């Protein structure tokens, strides 16, 4: 048996001008995760390290660089699972957190629950000493540009009824 780390940076269409950075980003993340294993770290330590790196890389849709919701805001989800005891932790719809994957691990390690959501997850983050970041720090020019492009002409972003006609076949990939 040979230890291994395998990472993915998202499926779908990757514009040519972003392909090299995407390639470099996943390679760097895999190396970082593998370095953890070589130091004797656990598979859980390795995947959290690899995914944290990808969250910090603005070329990927997670953490900094996340796509925006209809209101132009970042809402992020994350999960970890440990195969040894089937332990799991997750967060959903969290804001202002640089590394949701680390918060998901805290849910697994520090609570008896499997998933915390929205403001509850953010409050848990504060109680764990996880510092919040300004919302703008997670938004890139590219994600804002795509958000604007995918708004229907004249659409009110707050009106969720419009959303169905806007998003049926555009930007379907998460």
């Amino acid at each position: 048996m040979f230890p291994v780390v395998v990472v993915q940076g998202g499926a779908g269409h990757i514009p040519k001008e972003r392909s090299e950075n995407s390639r470099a980003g996943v390679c760097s993340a895999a190396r970082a995760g593998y370095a953890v294993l070589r130091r004797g770290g656990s598979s859980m330590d390795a995947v959290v390290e690899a995914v944290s790196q990808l969250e910090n890389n603005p070329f990927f849709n997670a953490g900094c660089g996340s796509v925006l919701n209809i209101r132009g805001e970042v809402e992020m989800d994350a999960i970890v699972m440990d195969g040894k005891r089937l332990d799991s932790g997750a967060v959903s719809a969290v804001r202002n957190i640089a590394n949701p994957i680390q918060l998901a691990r805290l849910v697994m390690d520090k609570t008896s629950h499997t998933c915390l959501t929205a403001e509850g997850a953010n409050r848990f983050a504060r109680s764990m000493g996880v510092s919040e970041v300004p919302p703008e720090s997670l938004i890139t020019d590219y994600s804002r540009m795509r958000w604007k492009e995918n708004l229907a002409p004249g659409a009110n972003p707050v009106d969720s009824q419009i959303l169905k006609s806007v998003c049926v076949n555009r930007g379907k990939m998460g």
Partner: protein
Amino acid sequence: TVGAVAVDAEGNVACATSTGGMLNKMEGRVGDTPCIGSGGFADNQVGAVSTTGHGESIVKVTLARLILFHVELLTVFSGQSVEAASDLGLAYMKSRVGGLGGVVTVDPQGHWATRFSTRQMAWAAAQKDTLHYGLYTGE
């Protein structure tokens, strides 16, 4: 979406998946990522999977768990690979709900696969001090 799976020196497997979700999604929309068995699953007896793609489709077929179900069956009955199991899961999602996506999969022995039904998926794998990576089908 981004994600990772790993096997350590003790044969323990783990998965992690993180996402900003879907472009211009409704406020409060949650997809597959934080759902056990959909955005990821890990079990030392079978392997680990992290998924990406159309979240609503992935949830409907619980893609990560489905692939590990195939890993289990293929290993027991035919000795086939994590690659074949990943393809079976993705094909089922495409045929049943029309969803496309990608996965990274490992088994506890360190066999691994990166498979996708979309045009592209950025991926990389490190094992035995060697780095593998790709973006297009066949890479």
